[in-house]
């Protein structure tokens, strides 16, 4: 009994910190989603589910959701493809591999604001290096290309996360498995499909889950892309629109309702993901 009490006492500071820093803000966010509340002034009025009804009836919300899905699904697919390919390459022995590994994680350690500024210079429609090399005047920050630009920057920035996770797992796959497959006559492709991929399954599960959450809620990269120019309307993803509702329309209640809906969407998507993953495992 005393030991249990001591245990609780020891855990208590951590629990209090967690409650103060995580539970309280989330609970407060949910609470104010039921109010019509100015973002900075104490004016507020209880509106029940009014904010939720207004959000669901708002065509801009659905447009932002669509843009957010295009952005997150495309970037996740590309990050996975490039990250896995780069990990397979860097798992092979070749001269300069250490340097290549170090360089490949460079985009992930560059602060987002620096990365976006660099890319905006590179993609500048009048004087950018990319257009100079292509030899054609593409308006990378205009309506037709800004989503592509955002995807390029995001994939460049975040594929090293996939690379690191997959490379770490690749290095721990027992070489005997490959030896046995080779003895059985499996070529490189069949070794990849029947040995490597199954071994990567668990790490890819986590990577896809984390990257989905992070890309769907990504704020800084798209926000920085539209600072000082950039066709904002065409990359106004859900986090951007939520921010604007809260800090440009000054509607904290409605912004919170949007954040709660975003959270519920992520929970539902994660639950489905887990469900299918378990079913897959059972098969």
């Amino acid at each position, binding site marked *: 009994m005393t030991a249990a009490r001591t245990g609780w006492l020891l855990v208590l500071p951590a629990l209090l910190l967690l409650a103060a820093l995580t539970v309280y803000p989330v609970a407060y966010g949910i609470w104010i989603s039921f109010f*019509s509340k100015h*973002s*900075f*002034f104490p004016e507020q009025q209880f509106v029940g589910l009014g904010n939720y009804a*207004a959000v669901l009836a*708002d065509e*801009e919300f659905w447009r932002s959701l669509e843009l957010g899905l295009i952005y997150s699904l495309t970037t996740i697919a590309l990050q996975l493809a490039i990250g896995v390919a780069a990990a397979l390459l860097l798992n092979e022995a070749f001269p300069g591999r250490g340097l290549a590994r170090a360089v490949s994680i460079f985009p992930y350690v560059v602060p987002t604001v620096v990365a976006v500024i660099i890319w905006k210079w590179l993609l*500048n*429609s*009048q*004087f950018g290096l990319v257009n100079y090399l292509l030899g054609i*005047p593409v*308006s*990378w*920050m*205009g*309506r*037709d*290309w*800004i989503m592509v630009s955002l995807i390029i920057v995001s994939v460049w920035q975040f594929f090293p996360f996939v690379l690191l996770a997959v490379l770490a797992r690749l290095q721990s796959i027992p070489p005997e498995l490959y030896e046995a497959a080779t003895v059985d006559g499996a070529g490189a492709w069949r070794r990849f499909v029947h040995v490597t991929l199954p071994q990567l399954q668990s790490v890819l599960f986590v990577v896809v889950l984390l990257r989905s959450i992070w890309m769907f809620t990504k704020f800084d990269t798209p926000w920085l892309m*539209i*600072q*000082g*120019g*950039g*066709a*904002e*309307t065409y990359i106004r993803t859900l986090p951007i629109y939520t921010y*604007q509702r809260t*800090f*440009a*329309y*000054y*509607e904290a209640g*409605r912004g919170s309702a949007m954040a709660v809906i975003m959270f519920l969407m992520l929970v539902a998507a994660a639950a489905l993901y887990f469900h299918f993953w378990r079913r897959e495992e059972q098969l």
Partner: protein
Amino acid sequence: MKTIPSVAALLLAAVLSSAQAQKVIRVWHTETQPNSQEAVRNIAKRFEAKHPGVKVEVEALAWGDLEGKIMASLAAGTPPELSHGQPITCAALQSKGLLLPLDEVVQALGEANIWDQVKRVCRVGGKQYGLVHAAGTSLLIYRKDLAQKLGLKPPRTWADLVANAKAFTTGGMYGITIPGDNLFINILLGELLKANGGIFFDRQNRPQLSSRPMLETLEFIRDLTRYAPPGWEGHGYLETFTNLYGQKAAMMYQGYGRGAGLIEKGALPSMANAEHFDVWVKPVGPSGREPAAQVDEEPWMLFKGSKNPKEAVEFLKFFYQKDNYLEYVQTVPIHLFPITKSLRADRDYQATPMIQRWKSWIEVQEGYLNNDQGKPTLVIDWDDMNSKPYLMEVLGSGILRDMVMDVALENKSPREAASRAQRRLEDLLKSKGYLK
């Protein structure tokens, strides 16, 4: 042994007394150009030297950061003593009783010595709640050398301007460059609507986006942007200047006097002058009667609830004293017009070399200001400043920008785009209780 406690007590007393004596004035401003920042810091240092025990903490903020930072500081109950702000922000904060009047500063400057136009900003019930730090207006800048070569005349109407834009568009040169970001599209729409005799809202706060002047304005923007560089909607303000002096565009509708400095730095040395980059008076819309421009004149605001408002008032009086104010406005002379008649007429000010070099730019701005043709962003009539405290939210919402983009880029008819924006604006105003 007794000396240690005595010394400690003395030190404590000294620390406490210095903490009590040190009064801090926090000043937030938006003149982020390095020489302007330095001028404000110099003025602050001189003020500190004259007022021992007072410290001035100056912070230069980018426009995008300012509104949020002001609001957050007010919500936290720790506003700065002084800050710049948009005129419509000043009006919104005054309507909520968050500002203190600056009448003492006005009296110190001499009320008759301040330009009438400037006194209309954030003035409520005869009290001055915002005092403009300096004024400038938007400008239609054009390539004078090319216009002469093509035989183009100053545009009197929007149709003339579109025709000029078409004539300028040859080879790698586009007729016009316009920033596509939210703030500048709101500024553009506001001044065009003014130049076309329209209004955004009626007296009951109902948006008037489907009115004839607005539909004509949208048609004009669609026609004009046909001669803008592809992807113009992604260009920021600085990029449009790069287009102009980089010889990619021949006209710039949303230019400012500050741009003269950019041209002197960025254009070819042989072209960096008013003989190549001059300004035209902006043309009038089909339903309008006179030109209109946006006046860029952020007021200083003094916050209720700040710790040292009296000292802040003294600082502002000091800021506007001739030598200090002259140093400040000379950092961007073609953009920061003094608000006092005395300084504008002053020989030292008039002798500023840059003012000599870009005289026509000054004259056009003076014309807008003297004829009351310049108004702050989204303000059509001075009365809007006080009767429409929601303009700040309208600007931030991006609804007007979306309407313009729907017409210019999405091939929607002006009526279709306007009715969509009308619906959104009505929702916004209803949710805030301004519209029944």
